């Protein structure tokens, strides 16, 4: 049976919360012409119906709390419960209250900035961006402002991205008004250095890389790449989506990167929440510090303050001070683990990935780029199997599938990222399940899943005749 919509549980004049005792008369304050003629058709439900509705929805949803979630390039690690208590301590702060009455919040921001600078090897930071992709945009705008300031803004019109890059990289460069050129990967899965050399020149503004890359491989020639880009006056941008593998062990700043964004909702345990909110602080080397967005958090003689006085700033990228409550969670994570804990977490994420990779090879899966992987790796099913069917089969066996069909350079890709918070027995059970799927009859795989809240959905219909609201008549 279909699960009812909240609108279908609604009954005229049924009431939930009443927050106001004496209701004022609207027309006493607002002339008729400004008033709504027709009330919005919002649900009318009592509180228990509301609770049952959303509790029911939650049971039709998996998360890290319920299921192994090895989503490559997304880092679905456990979200500590301590952090949810931590954010409640800061819930009632208004961004425009007198800064002297928000010194604790500003101190926390300043400290977190220092920790993140230390972990990335950068000189200055902004906590403003609301997500990783938002951080990317901020970083690229900073690079653009730098080139413009040096009089090279018109000339440097191109951003280079490897063919294995996250889709957000080319989209970001395009949003910042750049042309995008793809750099192919070599046979070892790393950036093809010769191809890169051919693309580099005075027309290039930036190279966007993630390291380890989306094949889970560390770009071992990174120092050479950094040297080449420096010689060409090109800024090197670090997509921090994969920092989880190396945190504490190696820093983008030491590898020659000029800009780094971090995904606090990946590396630093802020929950993904079904797709956000995230947080994407951006660290830069000193030469780019003048271009950071406003405001920055600074420590002065009279405590902590927000600095809006940055004449070369790219301006504002978000209202207020970013996703502050996400910052609280990341702060708590770093203080709980310390440097040694972070290094251990990184190393165990790598160990889990390498161990799982071995188990999958044993079960008949192929590893197209079988170098020393970091926290994730890309596998392929044996010939004749469709990755989509295997993913749906995994759902039937109680696992969330890995990322599928990404990176684009691997056919039938399964991009697996177990993360450090999963146990040896979970990895083994997962490998066993993936192995069993190869023994299933073709029809079973093509029909999976069977016992999930819904079976495979008609995507074509959703695209051709989208019904986007309950009242949409199509």
């Amino acid at each position, binding site marked *: 049976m279909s699960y009812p919509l909240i609108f279908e549980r609604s009954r005229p004049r049924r009431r939930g919360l009443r927050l106001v005792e004496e209701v004022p008369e609207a027309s006493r*304050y607002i002339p008729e012409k400004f008033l709504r003629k027709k009330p919005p058709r919002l649900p009318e439900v009592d509180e228990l119906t509301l609770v049952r509705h959303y509790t029911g929805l939650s049971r039709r949803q998996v998360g890290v709390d319920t299921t192994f*979630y090895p989503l490559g390039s997304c880092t679905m690690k456990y979200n500590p419960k301590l952090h949810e208590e931590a954010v409640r*301590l800061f819930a*009632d702060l208004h961004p*425009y*209250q007198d800064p002297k009455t928000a010194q604790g919040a500003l101190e926390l921001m300043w400290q977190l900035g220092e920790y993140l600078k230390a972990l990335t090897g950068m000189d200055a930071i902004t906590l403003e961006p609301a997500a990783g992709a938002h951080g990317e945009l901020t970083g690229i705008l900073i690079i653009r402002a730098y080139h413009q300031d040096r009089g090279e803004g018109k000339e440097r019109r191109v951003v280079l991205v490897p063919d294995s890059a996250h889709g957000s990289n080319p989209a970001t460069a395009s949003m910042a008004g750049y042309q995008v050129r793809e750099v192919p990967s070599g046979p070892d899965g790393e950036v093809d250095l010769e191809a890169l050399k051919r693309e580099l020149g005075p027309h290039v503004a930036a190279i966007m890389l993630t390291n380890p890359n989306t094949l889970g491989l560390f770009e071992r020639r990174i120092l050479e790449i950094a040297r080449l880009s420096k010689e060409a006056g090109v800024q090197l941008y670090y997509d921090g989506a994969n920092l989880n593998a190396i945190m504490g062990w190696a820093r983008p700043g030491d590898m020659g990167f000029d800009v780094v964004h971090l995904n606090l909702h990946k590396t630093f345990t802020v929950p993904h929440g079904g797709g956000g909110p995230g947080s994407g602080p951006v660290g830069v080397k000193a030469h780019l510090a003048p271009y950071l967005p406003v405001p920055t958090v600074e420590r002065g003689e009279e405590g902590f303050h927000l600095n809006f006085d940055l004449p070369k700033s790219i301006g504002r990228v978000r209202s207020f001070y970013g996703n502050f409550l996400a910052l609280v969670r990341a702060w708590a994570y770093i203080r709980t683990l310390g440097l040694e804990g972070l290094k251990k977490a990184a190393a165990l994420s790598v160990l889990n990935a390498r161990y799982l990779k071995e188990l999958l090879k044993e079960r008949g899966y192929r590893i197209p780029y079988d170098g020393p992987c970091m926290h994730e790796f890309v596998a392929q099913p044996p010939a004749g199997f469709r990755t989509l069917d295997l993913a749906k089969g995994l759902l039937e066996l109680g696992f969330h599938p890995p990322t599928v069909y990404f990176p684009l350079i691997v056919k039938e890709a399964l991009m697996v990222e177990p993360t450090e*918070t999963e146990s040896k027995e979970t990895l083994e059970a997962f490998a066993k399940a993936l192995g069993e799927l190869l023994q299933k009859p073709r029809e079973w795989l093509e029909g999976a899943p069977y016992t999930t809240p819904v079976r495979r959905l008609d*995507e074509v219909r959703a695209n051709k005749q989208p019904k986007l609201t309950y009242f949409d008549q199509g």
Partner: protein
Amino acid sequence: MDYTPHTEEEIQAMLERVGAGSLEDLYLHLPQEVLNPEISLPEPLPEWAVLEELKRLAANNKPAFKAFLGGGIRSHHTPPVVQALASRGEFLTAYTPYQPEVSQGVLQAIFEYQTMVAELTGLEVANASMYDGATALAEGVLLALRETGRMRVVVSQGVHPEYREVLQSYLDAVGAELRTWPLREGRTPLGEIPEGTGAVVAQNPNYLGALEDLAPLADAAHRVGALFVVVADPLSLGVLEPPGAYGADIAVGDGQTLGLPMGFGGPHFGYLATKKAFVRQLPGRLVSETVDAEGKRGYILTLQAREQYIRRAKAKSNITTNAQLTALMGAMYLAALGPEGLKEVALKGVAMAHRLWELLLEIPGVAPFTPKPFFNEFALRLPKDPHGVRATLAKRGVHAVTPVPKEYGENLALFAATELHREEDLMALTEAMREVLA
């Protein structure tokens, strides 16, 4: 401590299996020059001590619950039922619903959210939430520029100054031109819209709290072939005529006023609603109803060809994560209150703001600035620098006086009221203001 489950024995067994002698060995292929840098971080703390340290920091803040502060964020009641339901691990720890068979909870919740936003704004479709109101405005304007193929934007000074700054950053990036129309006596005047304008933007209630009659501006925008973009506080739409009813093509705003904690400015969520004709230009996630293999109703992400992971450099926007969890809170809040409850909360703020306006204007030296009619917020001219007044009040435990940027005039401050305020709160603020301004 950390959150890893491995015992020493397990680590050894796994290392052996992958052919490594130690955890350090896993990093041996990295360039030696960058391996094991010196990093200075505080020593790790046990869980209770982390919490203790957080409490120490929190004690250095004075919470602004029941604040009279405004400017886009206001102190509202966050219903415990919303907190409790949104805190469920399945919602909290899920990712973007790429596997719809096990993500019907989030997908259906988004579909219901899209419906509620469309209802509130009087428009046909809404995407599944943006980062905040300011970036939603920027994305909404970029949508209008794509749709019209033009590169010029006119924005009223009545739009929140921080939103305008964010818009400026996004428009600079694509080389579009932004012109600001100054307010006249607190409202957006009807002027000449230059040729080639792709988007005209206004806010209602505007940044100073005043209600705007925007239908003539919508007509003027349409006459030159521009789309009309309205920034609206979603709570106000429980009472006010929705943007779709007076000609808006796109409505955007920030969801904080729908019962979300202020959180020092974030995270909240942005909403973006428009007409179905522009749906293929919408950035961000969209959920559609469809059927499964057995004909059963279900929900799925749709029209994804607009998005970065398929279209890469040709995507409509680079947005990947959105603000699903906070949007879920907004939807739960709307469902908990219903149309009547929402209207009541909005009206209570209106009534209290008008009462506060009367009281504060009795103080010598205080002058009105926002013209009537206003909503639940208004600006006054103070006889002293508002930053100083705010600081002095804060010392007395009162959070009020949102300083207004000088572009609007000297010594202006915003005052807001919500459902949380009672007559005695207004009297207390008035008394404190009287003393501080004396």
